[in-house]
């Protein structure tokens, strides 16, 4: 057999220490929780840090962590389809057991006796079938998860869960150990047990419940009929955790709108729909103890000793008189029952173990914790135990107090983690309780519903631990943000930021992340000033805080990304990213990926600042760093995309296409078939292909991009809107003018619905630039003028002078103002002169938009713009890469050339150019505006 590769089997230097710790951990695991600390303290061979490590492991051991559930789960399909009518079910086989007869029927489930034949023996089991199926994925997953948790619950006092699953018909079933016994109260009566014997029996029940509480499993429905005692006198709990497993069904099944509970045994928080925790079971145990001791059921809040009466004693068949029973209960047992049944869960015992301990102490005549801890009381107990020879031991008494205090304090710390986990778990589970309004009974709550309820619950029943509250609020704010909700999210994000600051301090990474989220929500809502304010405070916090380098760098990235959209000066964004990169480079643990991320983000900042050359260098470096570890990765594909964007912005369309195609091919190799990056790649390829009028390829890419934008982002998203406006450009290039208008209109209608005003402006402006060419070719100069003037005067950080290709739109504005002058155009010829000056920059000559810009100015007034035949011919010759021989820009160019030549009296040349233009135009669709119209 081959060994899997990569496991390092060399003996590490600290192997001895590890072996010692591991051995100690195993010893500790075998001890009762309260004995662990004694052992740890008494052990001489342990160093202090080793004790600390062991305590941490024990604390981790006590929690039911997420590792318990394998990553992902798979639905079990066992057994036959079973309908809701259980009469026909007897004789069928489920989970390997033949259903022999009905043992009992409950509100939502029927229990059958199951038999399985083995080699010469027959195994019995209780098979529980739900009346109603779990139809939704969520329900089934919850059920399976719980079932797995319960399957790990193994204790001699708990009826084992043997199997369980969901039949192909969606009916959940559970196979449990079959217990032949009688309910605990009946058992106690039949054997005429006295107070002490009943207490011993009860302690055993507590031990079983405690074992489950250790795994954070709560019974929820402890009552005599769920505790059977076998003929040998061993109590066994049935239906552990089943109540929770079934909770989702109850609403639908009974129609009462209340979760499963047994009146009389249910704790107040179960009625109030509060969080169910181990304290809920403690309450029921209190009720059970009272019933065992005085024969009274129900949540009676009187002291048990005050409820004693002869009739009950007779009914319990307890060998006691009223007086002797009252005397036995008065004091400690009264206190124990009342503490367990306290209305406020936090006042009750911390779990069944604590309750059992207290009863154990009572049985050993030690002080019980349920008693008010007066010194006199403790001393009296102490003297009671050590009758005779006591009085020289005042010193010892002090030592006992000290040890007790330390033990309590340490237990507190060890349990804090587990308790937080319980609280969060209980809270989240409570969300899945049946919906009380709105949705139908068979419907699983939607994510939105859950979020709404979760928020209400945090407000109404704030969990006691501020950390829990902060974690929950942050979680809901994050989910909400992911779902794209905004208005309602603002309060939540603000509360989350505040709660985190209170719980963990302003400088904690969690607080900083919560503030970042708040800033992002503000930005989404268009409150740019608010977002900026939050970001600047954050930045200051980051500088003074103690946050791990990589987290710090990520937060700086987030700040930069937000800053870009909230009007932060480009230089500031670059400075942020330089800071982030320095952090990454200074972190000894940073890998190639971390560094690459730093390079890429600095590149993106530089690109934002308009320094394409430097940006490209950083992107190239990022690509190299990413590929040092893996040739293909999503990150590397993203950098390729960024490089394509730079090439595109610089007007090198063929280079851009090459990068985009490279990115797309890499994504296909990974393989990533659906992803936001792929959406961008496809849409950008589509855009360039349309620009270059490579229409066959464009048809394919644009359709792919649009479909993926829809699948990944949905209809209202700006990427889908971008896909619509590209489709409109494609329509126009094909000559489908009417469709193009309709698609542009559709894109605008969607853009109007964007909530953030800044985003809306940006997307609308993008649609304007997309439509500029068709307005020009259709000679709709009013529309062109208004759009281009608005664009050039925009104060949006990414528009105005910062618009990509601003020089081109300035030349279109000049043309539109020459043809359709308006007051907004400024003085006559002013725009033309400015655009001509801008276009004189030699760096622009290689830009793909140089030729059409030149043509626009020449069309406006060639002489005034200083454009002659030679310049146009040079531009035409230089643009062969971007514009194929039949490109419509060439049609425009020859027509402009013809006009310029005619103006100079060169009629023959003019005729030749006009003829060339017409020959090219002849292959255009009949509806294309260039087909018929001669340029004026």
């Amino acid at each position, binding site marked *: 057999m081959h060994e899997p590769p990569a496991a390092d089997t060399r003996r590490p230097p600290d192997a001895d220490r590890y072996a010692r710790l591991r051995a100690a951990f195993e010893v500790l695991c075998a001890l009762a929780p309260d004995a662990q600390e004694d052992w740890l303290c008494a052990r001489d061979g342990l160093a202090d840090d080793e004790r600390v490590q062991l305590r941490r492991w024990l604390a981790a051991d006590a929690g039911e962590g997420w590792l318990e559930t394998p990553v992902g789960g798979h639905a079990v399909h066992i057994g036959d389809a079973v309908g809701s009518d259980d009469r026909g079910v007897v004789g069928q086989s489920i989970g390997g057991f033949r259903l022999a007869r009905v043992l009992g029927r409950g509100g939502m489930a029927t229990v059958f006796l199951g038999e399985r034949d083995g080699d010469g023996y027959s195994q019995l089991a209780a098979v529980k079938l739900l009346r109603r199926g779990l139809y939704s994925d969520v329900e089934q997953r919850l059920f399976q998860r719980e079932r797995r948790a319960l399957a790990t619950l193994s204790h001699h006092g708990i009826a084992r869960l043997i199997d369980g699953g969901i039949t192909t018909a969606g009916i959940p079933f559970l196979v449990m150990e079959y217990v032949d016994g009688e309910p605990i109260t009946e058992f106690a009566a039949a054997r005429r047990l006295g107070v002490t014997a009943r207490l011993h029996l009860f302690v055993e029940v507590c031990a079983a419940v405690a074992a489950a509480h250790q795994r954070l499993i709560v019974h929820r429905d402890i009552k005599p009929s769920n505790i059977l005692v076998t003929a040998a006198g061993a109590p066994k709990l049935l239906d552990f955790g089943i109540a929770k497993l079934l909770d989702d069904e109850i609403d639908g099944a009974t129609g009462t709108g209340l979760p499963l509970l047994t009146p009389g045994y249910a704790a107040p928080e179960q009625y109030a729909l509060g969080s169910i925790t181990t304290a809920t079971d403690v309450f029921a145990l209190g009720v059970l103890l009272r019933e065992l001791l005085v024969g009274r059921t129900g949540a009676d809040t009187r002291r048990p000793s005050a409820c004693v009466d002869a009739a009950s004693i007779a009914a319990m068949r307890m060998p006691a008189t009223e007086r002797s029973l009252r005397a036995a209960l008065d004091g400690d047992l009264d206190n124990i029952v009342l503490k367990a049944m306290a209305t406020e869960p936090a006042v009750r015992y911390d779990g069944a173990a604590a309750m059992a301990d207290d009863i154990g102490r009572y049985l050993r005549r030690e002080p019980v914790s349920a008693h008010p801890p007066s010194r006199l009381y403790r001393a009296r107990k102490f003297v009671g135990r050590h009758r005779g020879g006591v009085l020289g031991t005042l010193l010892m008494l002090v030592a006992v107090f000290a040890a007790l205090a330390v033990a309590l304090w340490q237990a507190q710390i060890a349990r804090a983690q587990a308790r937080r986990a319980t609280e969060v778990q209980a809270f989240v589970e409570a969300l899945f309780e049946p919906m009380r309004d709105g949705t139908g009974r068979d419907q699983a709550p939607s994510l939105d519903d859950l979020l709404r309820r979760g928020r209400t619950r945090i407000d109404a029943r704030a969990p006691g631990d501020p950390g829990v509250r902060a974690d929950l609020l942050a979680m809901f704010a994050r989910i909400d943000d*992911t779902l794209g909700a905004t208005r309602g999210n603002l309060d939540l994000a603000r509360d989350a930021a505040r709660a985190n600051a209170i719980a963990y301090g302003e400088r904690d990474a969690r607080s900083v992340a919560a503030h970042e989220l708040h800033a992002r929500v503000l930005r989404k809502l268009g409150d740019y000033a608010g977002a900026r304010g939050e970001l600047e405070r954050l930045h200051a916090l980051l500088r003074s805080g103690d946050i791990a380098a990589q987290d710090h760098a990520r937060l700086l990235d987030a700040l930069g990304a937000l800053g870009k959209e909230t009007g932060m000066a480009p230089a500031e964004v670059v400075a942020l990213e330089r800071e982030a990169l320095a952090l990454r480079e200074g972190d000894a643990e940073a890998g190639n990926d971390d560094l690459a991320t730093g390079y890429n983000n600095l590149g993106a900042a530089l690109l934002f600042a308009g320094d394409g050359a430097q940006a490209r260098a950083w992107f190239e470096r990022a690509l190299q760093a990413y590929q040092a570890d893996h040739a293909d990765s999503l990150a590397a594909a993203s950098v390729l995309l960024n490089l394509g964007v730079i090439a595109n912005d610089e007007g090198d369309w063929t280079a851009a296409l090459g990068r985009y195609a490279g990115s797309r091919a890499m994504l296909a190799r990974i393989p990533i078939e659906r992803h936001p990056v792929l959406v961008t790649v496809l849409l950008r390829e589509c855009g360039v292909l349309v620009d270059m009028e490579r229409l066959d390829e464009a048809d394919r890419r644009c359709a792919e991009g649009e479909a993926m934008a829809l699948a990944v982002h949905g209809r209202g998203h700006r990427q889908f809107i971008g896909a619509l406006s590209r489709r409109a450009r494609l329509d126009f290039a094909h000559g489908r003018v009417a469709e193009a208008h309709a698609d542009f209109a559709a894109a605008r209608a969607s853009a109007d619905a964007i909530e953030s005003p800044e985003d809306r402006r940006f997307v609308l402006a993008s649609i304007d630039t997309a439509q500029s060419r068709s307005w020009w070719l259709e000679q709709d100069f009013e529309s062109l003028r208004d759009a281009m003037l608005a664009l050039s005067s925009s104060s949006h950080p*990414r528009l105005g002078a910062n618009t990509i290709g601003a020089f081109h739109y300035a030349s279109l504005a000049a043309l539109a103002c020459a043809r359709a002058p308006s007051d907004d155009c400024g003085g006559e010829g002013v725009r033309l002169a400015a655009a001509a000056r801008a276009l004189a920059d030699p760096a622009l000559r290689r830009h793909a938009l140089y030729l059409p810009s030149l043509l626009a100015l020449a069309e406006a007034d060639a002489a005034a713009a200083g454009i002659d035949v030679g310049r146009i011919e040079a531009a035409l010759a230089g643009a062969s890469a971007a514009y194929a021989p039949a490109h419509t820009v060439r049609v425009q160019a020859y027509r402009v050339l013809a006009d310029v030549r005619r103006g100079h009296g060169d009629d023959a040349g003019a005729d030749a150019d006009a003829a060339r233009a017409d020959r090219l135009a002849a292959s255009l669709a009949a509806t294309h505006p260039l087909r018929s119209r001669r340029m004026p």
Partner: protein
Amino acid sequence: MDTPPPAPAADPDALFAEVYRRLKAMASRQLAGHERGTLDTTAVVHELYLRMGARQGLAFAEQQQFFAYAARAMRHLLVDRARERLSQRAGGGWIATTLDAEDDGLAIASAEQALQLDAALAELERVDARAARVVELRYFSGLALEQVADMLGLARATVVRDWRFARSFLHDRID
């Protein structure tokens, strides 16, 4: 079910690479079909087993070996995915002209957790390779502890102890 043909001798690294490649392809297909991008790893591993074991007749002399490879491969796959997500968040998502990736906070959180788990598991591997193997088979391949015991040829009690310890060790490192 057909018995697989006798296994040819194969290079373990090549086998591992093959398992990994197929796992990755299947995982990404499964992800593509899911709206929320959840990965049912147990199902993927078992499906892969059926495909490779039964149909392809690949050189897995024994089931044990397959699951050991698959668990390791799944661990690598999840870490790679986590890295991709995190780099995605920090990297290409923010592009100067079009803002695309709305980062998924939940996915990122679990991605970070996946990386932490991997690091903690590497740590455990260093001091206790057997316990780390138990975690891989249990957590990444989704095998029951009894099956893990069978796979590793250990007593069930040993595996239970290993698992209990490894769980505490990992939670302590991560939580």
